């Protein structure tokens, strides 16, 4: 047997600088969007006031960022693409007070190591500039050339020498939407800069320097209208500013939420939650408010060096910031005449805490029989036969079995055919429909059940059946973002089959003329955006299959928890559910019905 140590030592070779760079690149250059981010940060750090971006082929063929910033001299140009060559951090002390955006230094060299790169730069008052060409991290050419002040960095054939990474890239449209997301973050954070963004030869954005409010309108053309409210609150040296959207702008996904700390886009869950809590009950469950918020704070109090992609931040005094954000949002809503402490959705028995907007637990005395020893109406607890605590817990375990086998199905079908009369139907907590069957109680999840019904209907419609649609008196014109427009065009015909009569009305405009009859509350064209969001959440950026689209439609059009149903509506829901092919689960596979049988009840009451 060989000595293991010697085997190992023979196989270890020193990595070359080049390979080392490529590995490091993996950390920073995850996908085309990360390249774009680095290049833009570079331009911003050079104090540019005009930034033009060109991308092609989802960023794989080309990402070019052109700025009018301070430019680089010949030596700097070379240095910029060397690992850890950065003009920004000269001593360790500097790290404590980072004011610029890109400080890690390795970014440009990392990019250079995995692409073909061309950088042209010229400094102000310089007679000429320089052009550097590199491929896979190696300098190919460096010439003197005439160039306007500023820097143009063009990254082509990204990952040409790292096929493994290339394989992990998503489709062009997915990468395109990542690129756009990165662009949007910067465009929002720097409204004072003139931006342009061209993708595959098409003008996507041309943004003049403008106020933040105008920038918002330009970026999210989707009916922001007068539905955004300014936030401005300063406390203890921390300034929260920006805009929040009216509750009705809230979406099913987090897509339209932007948080910046010292103008740097960041992710920070607690702060996202602070915003949400500021809205209180104004926002429905599982909807996400629109916001673009800026936090200005002493850089000493923030740690941005948490992750190489620099999107996570840590605050020294998180709780305080949380508080200011929460108050800022609440104040903005109040100024807009909306009271986040008012709860519109609680049932009459529930009470709302006037300061926090939270639903308070019901006072104990309203749940228990009123007891008053003086009057003699007490309910003494059984001393001898006290219910053992264990038994009590068992009795409340949700053990009811899911109706899946054929027998159950038949008995339920009979029930819906009227062979067994549904004597009692009622709604529980505006969420579940409870009905009595021959030998059991059936509990139906109203959303999942309706989802199943709509899913099968939608599938039939998509396969040629078509749905009835209620014509609208006033066609609704919808403006959508460029990435949504791409997806929407792909599903246009299918949406028509689903009863959503929608047509193109310009580059990013669409007109809705009819909506599925009886599917949703009147005139709610949010369904279109909801479907797009659902598809995007599932990672679908281009033409989805019929099943996927039907599932997205069903999910977003189905009645929600919290919707109260009339008796005929509940009966119709049950009838329709059992008329479906697979009544027992929703398209996502969750159960639609739970059954609590008589036998089960008897067992639990200790009768058998």
């Amino acid at each position, binding site marked *: 047997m060989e000595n293991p140590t010697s085997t190992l030592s023979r196989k270890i070779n020193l990595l070359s600088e080049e390979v080392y760079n490529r590995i490091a690149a993996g950390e920073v250059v995850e996908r085309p969007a990360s390249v774009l981010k680095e290049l833009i940060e570079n331009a911003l750090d050079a104090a540019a006031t005009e930034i033009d971006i060109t991308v092609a082929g989802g960023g794989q063929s080309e990402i070019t960022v052109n700025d009018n910033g301070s430019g680089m001299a010949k030596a700097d140009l070379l240095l910029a693409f060397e690992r850890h060559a950065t003009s920004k951090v000269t001593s360790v002390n500097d790290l404590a007070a980072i004011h610029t955006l890109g400080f890690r230094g390795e970014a440009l060299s990392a990019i250079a190591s995995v692409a073909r790169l061309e950088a042209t730069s010229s400094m102000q008052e310089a007679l000429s500039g320089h052009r550097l060409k590199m491929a896979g991290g190696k300098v190919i050419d460096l010439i003197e050339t005439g160039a306007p002040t500023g820097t143009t960095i063009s990254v082509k054939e990204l990952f040409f020498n790292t096929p493994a990474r290339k394989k992990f890239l998503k489709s062009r449209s997915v990468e395109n939407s990542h690129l756009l997301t990165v662009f949007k973050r910067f465009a929002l954070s720097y409204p004072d800069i003139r931006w342009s963004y061209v993708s595959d030869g098409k003008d996507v954005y041309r943004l003049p320097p403008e106020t933040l409010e105008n920038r918002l309108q330009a970026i999210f053309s989707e009916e922001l209208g007068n539905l955004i409210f300014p936030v401005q609150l300063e406390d203890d040296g921390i300034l929260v500013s920006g805009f929040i959207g009216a509750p*009705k702008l809230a979406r099913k996904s987090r897509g339209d939420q932007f948080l910046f700390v010292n103008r740097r886009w960041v992710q920070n869950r607690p702060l996202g939650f602070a915003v949400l809590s500021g809205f209180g009950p104004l926002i429905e469950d599982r909807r996400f408010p629109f916001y673009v918020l800026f936090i200005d704070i002493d850089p000493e109090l923030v740690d941005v060096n948490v992750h190489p992609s620099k999107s996570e931040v840590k605050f020294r005094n998180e709780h305080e910031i949380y508080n200011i954000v929460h108050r800022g949002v609440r104040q903005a809503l109040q100024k807009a005449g909306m009271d986040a402490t008012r709860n519109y959705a609680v049932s009459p028995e529930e009470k709302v805490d*006037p300061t926090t907007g939270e639903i308070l637990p019901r006072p104990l005395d309203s749940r228990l029989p009123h007891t008053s020893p003086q009057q003699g109406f007490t309910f003494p607890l059984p001393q001898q036969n006290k219910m053992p605590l264990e038994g009590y817990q068992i009795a409340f375990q949700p053990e009811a079995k899911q109706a899946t086998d054929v027998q159950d199905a038949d008995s339920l079908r009979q029930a819906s055919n009227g062979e067994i009369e549904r004597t009692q139907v009622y709604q529980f907590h505006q969420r579940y429909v409870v009905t009595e069957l021959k030998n059991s109680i059936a509990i139906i999840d109203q959303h999942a059940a309706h989802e199943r019904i709509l899913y099968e209907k939608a599938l039939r419609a998509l396969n040629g059946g078509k*749905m*009835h*649609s209620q*014509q609208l*008196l*006033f066609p609704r014109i919808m403006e959508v973002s460029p990435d949504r427009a791409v997806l929407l065009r792909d599903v246009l015909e299918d949406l028509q089959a689903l009863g959503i009569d929608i047509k193109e009305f310009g580059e990013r405009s669409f007109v809705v003329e009819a909506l599925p009859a*009886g599917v949703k509350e009147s*005139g709610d064209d949010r369904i279109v955006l909801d479907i797009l969001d659902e598809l995007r959440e599932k990672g679908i950026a281009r033409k989805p299959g019929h099943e996927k689209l039907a599932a997205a439609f069903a999910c977003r059009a189905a009645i929600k928890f919290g919707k109260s149903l009339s008796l005929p509506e509940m009966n119709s829901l049950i009838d329709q559910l059992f008329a479906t092919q697979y009544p027992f689960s929703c398209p996502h596979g969750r159960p639609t019905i739970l059954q609590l049988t008589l036998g089960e009840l008897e067992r639990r009451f200790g009768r058998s």
Partner: protein
Amino acid sequence: MKFKVAQEPFLQGVAKVSGVVPSRTPLTFLYNIHAELKGNTLTLTASDGDVFLITSIEVEGQKDGSVLVPARPLQDLLKELPGAEIELEISPEQHLLLSTAKGQFTIPGEDSSRYPSAPQEKPDNKIQFSADDLKKILDQTTFAVSHDELRPALTGLLLQFTEDELRSVATDGHRLVKLVKNKPADGGEAIEVIVPLRTLNLLQRNLEYSKSVEVFLATNRVVFTTEDLTITSKVVEGKFPAYDAVIPKENPNLLSFDIVPFMAAVRRVSIFANQINRLVVISLSPEEIKVSAEDPDSGRKGQESVEGIYDGDPIDIGYNAQYLLEALRHMPGGKAQIKLGSATSAGVMTPEKQDQGTDLLMLLMPIRLQ
């Protein structure tokens, strides 16, 4: 504050304004009625923050003052004191001390300075209505007002005064009512406002007991005054859609029928409609007029021939039964007609005989049949 008053007028006054008191609000002072005594006039105000109801009653005043008093217990007590002579006084700690010949009752009140005050001045633009006329306008239009908070401009009734007409328009995007009336002789300038449905409902309740109503309009505020009640309300902000553009001018196919039997048939057939989309189909040909509904999910179906005259191309057109029935119900009696274009365009329903000086029109968008 101290005064004497008989139970009946006091209760009536309280009841008039308490309709607006919200049942649940975090602004707890809104649970109160604001009572203010000046000389022999007691002014009662209640509000939900958006709408103010104000009424005055004559009392035997002894000492001026004002207080906030919770509406519910006051009204409950007054109901149980029929025929009583009441003496009311506010204690220094803002308690309401009510005494009758035999009883003493204490209701803790609050300092009145917290209460929001209704804008005092009335807008200049004034139009006078008889209560009956206004009631009729509201009865025929408000049912079509939208409840969709996503489109605020549709959640009220558009009142549009021109040189010589008053147009009242309501729509929820699926149907529309337009009622044009000759302007009352005593009419103000041209103006338009959207009045919230809630305000109109509060007004409707009080019109029963009134003879005439003065309406004061400003672009941000509307005030209705009857003999004994003033309603001040904010208006709905937003732009009402260009409704005239969607009213078809040239619908060539004409259906006319007696409203009562037609409605009865639709109501019967609608039992068989799909409970979710409520789709009923009207099949029209010069030979036969047929109403039908079918719910493939349950296998139920029904159809019925109805009397009427149809002049036009054969056409099958689908409607939401609820919209159709509500439109029919708000037509004046007798005969009505529907002018139709295609199976996907708006049908125009009008009464065969318009009331004098009135032009009533309802639009119904069909459900597209597949």
